[in-house]
């Protein structure tokens, strides 16, 4: 029982990180019909920006993280939207998806060639030692990841529900034409979501890199899990992507411990394929009109 609780908590912590990446993915899809295959690399890059800043200027972690956040929002938010998405999306969503695969290849190997091919240790935000609650040991890093991811996602939900910009973004996502006719600057709203995606990816980088280590290909599995999470939960809704992330994290933890360690990814993949076959809008998604 104690094992079970620990597994669920650490699964939730990993799942919350997947959810951060998956929610960004869902936001881009909703406002722009953009599928970003470089989502994992969008987590990898801020991790290396933080590392480089700490190494070059001996900055404290919080300051390096803050600078990385700004850099990420400008480059992976604004520049990505203006220079790549705006140029390629008119050619079709799938063409853009392929282009982002190319972007992922370039980013990974750019870091590999320009910085290092090795795995680098990354300073932890939270202490690793366990604490005991009611006789069960929890890792502080897991709890911290859950709390920080929760704050980021909660803040995003509040922003979307209660601010003018947030509500305009939702309107733009739900019905582009209606939003345009109401005078909403749909393109600007889309730009904001790209910035939010970059910010969420940076938070995910700070949480995941201490245990994954910073490596040029760290985004591969992370990005894949986030995609699976977004599809399983349903990526036409932010909540769907959140639940998807948590389900994927807990499922792979429990399946790895109780069913088969070597096939733990297999259970997530099986769930993914079942969802795609029988409920393509996702477990928590709302059904989308089929686009012709």
């Amino acid at each position, binding site marked *: 029982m104690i094992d079970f609780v620990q597994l669920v908590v650490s699964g939730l912590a990993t799942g919350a990180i997947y959810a951060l990446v998956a929610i960004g993915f869902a936001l881009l899809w909703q406002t722009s019909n953009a599928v970003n295959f470089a989502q994992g690399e969008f987590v990898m890059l801020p991790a290396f920006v933080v590392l480089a800043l700490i190494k070059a200027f001996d900055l404290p972690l919080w300051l390096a993280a803050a600078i990385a956040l700004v850099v990420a929002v400008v480059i992976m938010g604004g520049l990505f939207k203006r220079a790549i998405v705006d140029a390629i999306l008119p*050619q*079709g969503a799938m063409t853009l*998806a392929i282009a982002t695969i190319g972007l992922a290849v370039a980013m990974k*190997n750019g870091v*590999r060639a320009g910085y290092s091919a090795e795995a680098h240790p990354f300073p932890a935000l939270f202490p690793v030692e366990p604490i005991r609650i009611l006789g069960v040991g929890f890792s502080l890093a897991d709890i911290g990841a859950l709390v920080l991811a929760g704050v980021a996602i909660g803040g995003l939900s509040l922003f979307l529900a209660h601010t003018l910009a947030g509500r305009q973004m939702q309107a733009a996502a739900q019905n582009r034409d209606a939003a345009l006719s109401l005078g909403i600057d749909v393109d600007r709203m889309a730009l904001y979501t790209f910035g939010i995606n970059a910010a969420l990816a940076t938070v995910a980088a700070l949480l995941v890199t201490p245990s994954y280590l910073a490596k040029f290909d760290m985004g591969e599995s992370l990005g894949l899990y986030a995609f*699976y999470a977004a599809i399983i939960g349903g990526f036409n809704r932010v909540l769907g992507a959140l639940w998807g992330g948590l389900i994927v994290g807990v499922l792979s933890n429990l399946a790895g411990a109780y069913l088969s360690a070597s096939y733990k990814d297999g259970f997530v993949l099986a769930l993914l394929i079942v969802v*795609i076959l029988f409920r393509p809008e996702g477990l928590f998604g709302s059904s989308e009109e089929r686009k012709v």
Partner: protein
Amino acid sequence: MTAGRWRLLGVLVLIAVLLAFPFFLRNYGLNLYARWALIAAAGIGLNLTVGYAGQVSLGHAAFLGFGAYLSAFAIKAGWTMWPAIPAAALLCFVVGLALGFPALRVQHHYLAFATLGFNALVFLAMRNEEWLTGGNYGIQRILRPVVFGWSLRDSFSYAYVCLGVLAVIAAIAWWILRSPWGRAFAALRDNPIRAESLGVNVRAYTLLAFAIGGALAGIAGVFFAPLIGYIDPHMFSGLVSIDLLLIVIVGGSGRFIGPLLGAAVGVLLPEWLRFMGDWYLVAFGALVLALMAWCPTGLAGLPERVATLLRPAPRDPAERAT
């Protein structure tokens, strides 16, 4: 000469160049050339699925893997690799049919992830079922064949074997595309709803697109294992599927010559640009980005794209409208 004759001449020159090429290569170059031929052959299979039928697939490396493992099993069992060819074609055809089912439900990026998930499952099985596949270590020392006492083990002979595989697969694909099947594939890609209303059985052709594309890659895979001499699961992972898709798209999806060009960019160019080291892949990624932005039809479509850019803009507004 007419355009058709020019095209025929081009094809003949290409064949002559491909036939002559191995004479100018040494061991390493010959193996690279053979690798190009097999990747191009697998790419032709993928191009049927992606370029002609318009179904995204990120599971194609799994088919290559099925062929490679079957061929390794057959060789290790003391048979030759030949029985592996029909076995791989059949297995990949059947698995391809099954993989086509998600395509009946979902399209585009959903399909991309469904097929990538399939590839990841196949990878897990290859890695975990050690009794069969040797797990992470894979299968070593896979020998090339000897036919009627005639050894095909040296790289020179085997390069021609692989070129022959490419020729046969290209011929099969050409025949399929010229048949009513090929026209149905194109109809499916361009407008599935209209295709259905014109009596094309969309379900059957979607499944066939995956099955035939998979079977062709499976055959290429059979020859892949003895070429490299060993196989392991990482040679057939989802990342390799992504590479294969990029190769087809960069070369020009839906163009017959596309996979041959794409495979050259993916397999041969890195060797000539070795001085670039890891930066080569950065340039490759940038090339994909640039092509998607300016010429989504890939390298095969580049001449037409350039011609469109160079042609003076029509002055008459009526002409511009057409």
